[in-house]
């Protein structure tokens, strides 16, 4: 069992989920509350990272990160090395790839909030921002939980992008998903089984914790 890979993966997943929540909140807010007629196009666009096969997506990310792209050169100029083959690169790739899973549940939760409550908050003198943090966000607990759970799980199992962008460097970019993939490729099925089980167990615990937390958040359901 490759504990280093597990720890790396946990770090990657948590970081990605955290970044995604932060990035997705304003986007979801815009999608939910904008009056633009074409916002459904933005929604569709935000779902697009999903439709690319991950390895192909990874390839394009690799090209975008590479020394022949402006972005890659800029990063290289700042940090001295390319974004590919670094943990930071993995994070960027994963964030990009899991973006749709963060945005859509939040949009749905925002839309489900009674507009009267937002009016009430505004009339009580709360700014848009304060209303967001004191009313909209708490009332979207289940959307936030879902966004976290899905992005966390998706990154945890993410493979194609990580494989392409990471270069499988032990301790830096060799995640548990790559590790178990390697084991299968090498025909070490027994080791792969063990790793898979650990992977499932760990993620089950984390997901259960997320959903349990969400259950404890104010319950709106009739039975609560």
């Amino acid at each position, binding site marked *: 069992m490759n504990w280093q890979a597990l720890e790396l993966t946990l770090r990657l997943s948590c970081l990605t989920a955290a970044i995604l929540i932060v990035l997705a909140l304003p986007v979801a807010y815009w999608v939910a509350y904008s009056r633009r007629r074409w916002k459904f196009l933005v929604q569709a666009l935000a779902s697009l990272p999903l439709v690319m096969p991950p390895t192909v997506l990874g390839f394009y990310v690799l090209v975008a990160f590479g020394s022949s792209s402006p972005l890659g050169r800029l990063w290289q100029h700042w940090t001295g090395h390319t974004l590919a083959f670094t943990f930071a690169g993995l994070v960027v790739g994963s964030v990009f790839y899991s973006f749709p899973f963060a945005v859509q549940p939040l949009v749905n939760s925002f839309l489900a909030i*009674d507009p*009267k*409550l937002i*009016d*009430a*908050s*505004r*009339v*009580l*003198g*709360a*700014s*848009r921002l*304060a209303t967001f943090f*004191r*009313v909209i966000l*708490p*009332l979207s607990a289940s959307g936030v939980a879902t966004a976290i759970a899905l992005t966390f799980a998706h990154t945890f199992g993410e493979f194609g992008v990580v494989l392409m962008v990471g270069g499988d460097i032990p301790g830096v970019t060799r995640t548990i998903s790559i590790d178990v993939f390697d084991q299968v490729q090498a025909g070490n099925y027994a080791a792969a089984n063990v790793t898979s089980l650990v992977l499932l167990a760990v993620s089950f615990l984390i997901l259960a914790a997320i959903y349990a937390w969400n259950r404890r958040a*104010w319950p*709106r359901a009739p039975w609560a």
Partner: protein
Amino acid sequence: MGVREGRTLSSADDERETARNEILLEAAIRKRYAGSPGSSFSLDVRFAVPAGFTILFGRSGAGKTTTLEAIAGLVKPDAGKILLEERLVYDSASRVNVDVSHRGVGYVFQDSALFPHLTVERNIRYGLRGVPEIERKKRVGEILESFRIGALALRLPRVISAGERQRVALARSLVTRPDILLLDEPLAALDAPAKSRIVEDLRAWNRVRRIPILYVTHSREEVFALGERVLVIERGRIVAEGLPQDVLEAPREETVAQLAGFENIFDARIAALHEEAGTMTCLLNPGAIEIEAPLARVETGAAVRVGIRAGDVLLATEPPRGLSARNVIEGTIEAIEERDFRVLARVNCGATFAVLLTPAARRSLGLAAGQRVWLIVKTHSCHLLRPAAQD
């Protein structure tokens, strides 16, 4: 601000007089809800509100909520201008549109709109963000106490009753000490004792604050209990305006008459004008009854409608003698029933009149159906009405 603070030190009555003349809310609002299937609705109102209670009175769908929402900034008018305490908060011409949260408005929604994730106490604290903790505790404690919702402080809105929710919503608005208060039927779900207690609280509260309070209600009792002024709104237009007794007791519009409870409304024809006496003779219904009414700008022969409040009709069991009243009509009691401590008699005199009595009067006169009676109606109790718009 300084002016208003100072004013609270002067005597309440002096203050009311000065405040009456000072307009603190001025609004001209046009808003059209079009495109909806069925009939469309358009609001076009213009009014000024001084400090104190102003009642917005009108039937369901008249546009009361829409008016409040426009003032609060929750609905954007198509055109118009809104001034709160001489501050321009909306003006379609100069494209001013101050944000809801900066209008200093307290608003109690028709449905209480409590935050479902916050306890009663936290709901009430919501608007007190910038207030120091000690002050905040004090204010919240006071209002919980005065609205008798202290026992609910730690409950979520989901598990309290509708009337309790309404009290919390009212407390939540009042506690922020807004510059203007918009109340959309805030007491509709409350029982009479709770209602009158809160009405008393509101009056006392406003004696100190002297802010304009725009209060929507259907209840005539609330109009008289609270109202210093009434605005009657009908199909999106202000159709009457003034003191409660002027507007509701001497209505010019038949719709107002209906709302105000003019139980007797008759088709009539002007038979004669008596310029010197200041009266005119009207023939009610098929011409069976002759009535003297105050002189008005009409032609002889014109078709009008006359409204008479049931409470203005006196009833006698013998033909009255030596009375100043010009209108004495003989009739027979068709039916008599008690309703809510009032006795309603229907008297047939050719047309059917509704007459309101106290139970005590009924008993002392020994009134019963079939009995012969005389109705006495003072000239000034007969109101000429403009016909209602088609419904």
